[in-house]
């Protein structure tokens, strides 16, 4: 359960209530640099809510967050980004009417001195955007192209490329592959792999056990707002993981008729 080095983020007993809904009922977790931590679980288990507390979107109702060993409270996403946490949200955080390069640098605009005032360095932004997109295998018509003209998969790729580019220390991905085709999925998994090898901590949410097994170093399963425990790679088989995620016995009936292919 522990690693040879110190966790970059440690979440302790996080609870989150929305009005009368208890979305998280005490979840603890450690994320280590250079490792991919997979977060799994049913719909509505609280995965998105959990990572949103990690990235400053929600403030936890109860619980503590330690970042690089120090207790920390993110007031807003900006603080988390400043601390080096980059997130690709399930609901994408792209602005369709804006150009790809403006979207790419949204919140992280590069500045250029112009006399006394600082201006948006469009040239730099355009260059970097084109470059980063090319690295991800996407050739844009131009950096001015509006995000609205991209397909869903392409948008997803922009979001990931952006997060990777600015994700200094921690990269959080919330179901990045759910809407992607096979090739795009492979691309994303490869990116996670690459990023992890650069020493960045990755938190990866998915419903697909195979995707999780492909890149995960640790696996945490959430269920109805609580954690079912964390397992290390090699300590758990895909079948055990699948069972845990689905809550066990209920699947047996289906498996029969569908041939264990889920």
């Amino acid at each position, binding site marked *: 359960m522990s690693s040879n080095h110190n966790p970059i983020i440690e979440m302790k007993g996080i609870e989150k209530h929305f009005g009368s809904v208890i979305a998280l009922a005490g979840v603890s977790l450690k994320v280590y640099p250079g490792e991919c931590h997979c977060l799994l679980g049913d719909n509505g288990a609280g995965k998105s809510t959990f990572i949103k507390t990690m990235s400053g979107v929600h403030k936890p109702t109860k619980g503590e967050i330690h970042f690089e060993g120090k207790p920390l409270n993110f007031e807003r996403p900006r603080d988390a980004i400043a601390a080096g946490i980059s997130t690709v*949200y399930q609901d994408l955080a792209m602005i*369709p009417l*804006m150009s790809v390069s403006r979207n790419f*640098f*949204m919140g992280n605009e590069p500045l250029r001195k112009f006399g006394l*005032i600082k201006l948006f360095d469009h040239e730099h932004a355009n260059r970097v955007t084109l470059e980063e997109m090319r690295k991800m295998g*996407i050739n844009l018509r131009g950096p001015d192209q509006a995000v609205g003209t991209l397909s869903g998969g*392409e948008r997803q790729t922009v979001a990931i490329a952006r997060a990777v580019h600015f994700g200094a220390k921690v990269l959080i991905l919330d179901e990045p592959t759910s809407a992607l085709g096979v090739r795009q999925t492979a691309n994303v998994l490869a990116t996670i792999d690459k990023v992890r090898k650069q020493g960045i901590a990755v938190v990866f949410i998915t419903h697909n056990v195979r995707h999780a097994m492909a890149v995960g170093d640790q696996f945490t399963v959430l269920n109805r707002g609580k954690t079912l425990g964390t397992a290390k790679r090699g300590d758990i088989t895909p079948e055990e993981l699948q069972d845990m995620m689905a809550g066990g016995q209920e699947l047996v009936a289906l498996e029969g008729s569908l041939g264990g292919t889920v």
Partner: protein
Amino acid sequence: MSEAPSPALNGDERIKTRSRFREALIRPELGGIVGTAVVFTLFLLFASDSGMFNSQGIMNWSQVSAQFMIIAVGACLLMIAGEFDLSVGSMIGFAGMMIAIFSVTLGWPVWLAIIVTFALALAIGALNGFIVVRTGLPSFIVTLAFLFILRGFTIYFPQTIERKTIIGGVKDAAEGDWLAPLFGGKIFTGLFQWMGDAGIIAVFERGTRQGQPVVDGVPMLIIWALVLVVLGHILLTKTRFGNWIFAAGGDAQSARYTGVPVNRVKILMFMTTAFCATVFATCQVMEFGSAGADRGLLKEFEAIIAVVIGGALLTGGYGSVIGAALGALIFGVVQQGLFFAGVESSLFRVFLGVILLFAVILNTYIRRMITGER
């Protein structure tokens, strides 16, 4: 199937080609540019002999357009940030009245009256913005409430304090003030006098000012308009904050996720709108020397119309200050031009409605081409 390394749209067999020329043409301001060209062509054809394009005529519609521009800049930035402000007109009335009450009734020096009024207006703008971002209510409703509240006070204050709804005498009070000329003065008067003497522009042939040039300077109103347009344009397109404005209006939630301080952006834009309205009011008070409770009626619509004619998207996230300025120019030229052309004045509203409709349809078409909206 194909060797292309990605499903990108570039060099794609699935994209029909589009000419370079067409691409270069398609920009947010295109509608405004086309509109301006059309409007000027029409009036040059049909009203050129009416004095619309002599120096006096030009000054005439320039001033009207400049007024629209001042409020359009604020409305444009706010609209791009995803909100709009129906209280602009009431704010104009309110700010003007405050200046008059402070300077005439309370006898403060005019510069102090102006500064305090600006502070007050910015505070009200901030309050508007604060309510909108905190409650998540549509700005239509919140600012509609302020439309009524501010107008109510604009009528109530002078009536209870001075027993009248027009407070005059600001001109006398402003005599010798250092700040007032910044709003009410004219510049380049020497240049115009010289041009008049040199016969380049017409001079008065009769009346009290015989021999003086018919246009004796550029009113500060026009300078304000140009400065605000330039600053607004730079802010929007060239700065980090400009990117935030687009982001806040395009999708507030997404912008928040990526670390854009959306609430701050929106509140600041409400304040900008209030600022522009106050500039308008101050210029007007300084020019006419009085403040009336009915000043600024319906100006909020005029601002919104100019902005929309200029190509901005009512729902936010898209637009251009240059476009809004052109929209204001079109609006001003059409309004005055119809007078020059001698069109029955009650038909002005009909023209305005029709122009608005056509401009906005044209703009929608252009925008869809740019953004690939569906």
